[in-house]
């Protein structure tokens, strides 16, 4: 396997706009014993309490900035709801996720998704 190393990736044909890529992603579950079903760019997930996952990056970012997102894939094992959620980059190595419901309480999702773009 070979690794491509570049500083920027640009569109080739119209203007050369830069592409920004995902630094980390995960499909996770906070149902039962918390689990990382699949992931990239993470070393671990910390289950801090009900509806409170923390995503720990395998390597530190150069600064604590970027665009982090947590979304609900499946609220309960058989039920899909549109629910509230949030994420915050708390340090160069950790992103806090907030898994919600239809109010401000935190809930344990059956399946959730996490992404960090930078």
């Amino acid at each position: 396997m070979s690794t491509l190393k570049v500083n920027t990736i640009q569109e080739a044909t119209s203007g050369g706009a830069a592409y920004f890529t995902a630094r980390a992603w995960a499909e996770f579950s906070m149902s039962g014993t918390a689990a990382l079903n699949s992931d990239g760019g993470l070393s671990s997930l910390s289950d801090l309490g009900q509806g409170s996952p923390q995503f720990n990056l395998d390597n530190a970012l150069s600064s604590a900035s970027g665009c982090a997102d947590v979304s609900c894939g499946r609220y309960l094992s058989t039920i899909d709801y549109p629910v509230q959620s949030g994420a915050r980059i708390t340090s160069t190595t950790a992103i806090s996720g907030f898994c919600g419901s239809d109010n401000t309480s935190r809930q344990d999702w059956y399946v959730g998704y996490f992404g960090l773009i930078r």
Partner: protein
Amino acid sequence: MTTYRVIFDDPDHLDEPTKVLVPSQNWLDIAMSGGLPPIWVYWQLQDDEQKAIKEGRHKEFQHDPEKHALQWTALRIGPLTEEEAMEYLVMKDLPRRCWAEEHNRPMFKIVRTEQVPSDRTFRNAWEMAA
């Protein structure tokens, strides 16, 4: 697929529920194939960031580029066993006060997944057993 988990308490916030660290299988595979830098590479970065937080300049903080690059350029430490990788992960991803300071009880335990409750009804009341 690993069957290890780490349960831990934050000694600065003992009123909070016990936390559970779930390792990434991808990361464990890298650790067990010898792809990790020495742990001090991460500690150095953590120290610099903690200093910036204490001094109130975290918002504009940037890691020193040379120290940051060591994550990829430092000489790799060689393959770890799964148990060694879990110990490395504890020292990397748990707050340092959990494992580097002395307390009147252990602040973390490496356990098997089946030892972690799967009923989350009272998740915010979980406490580490003695």
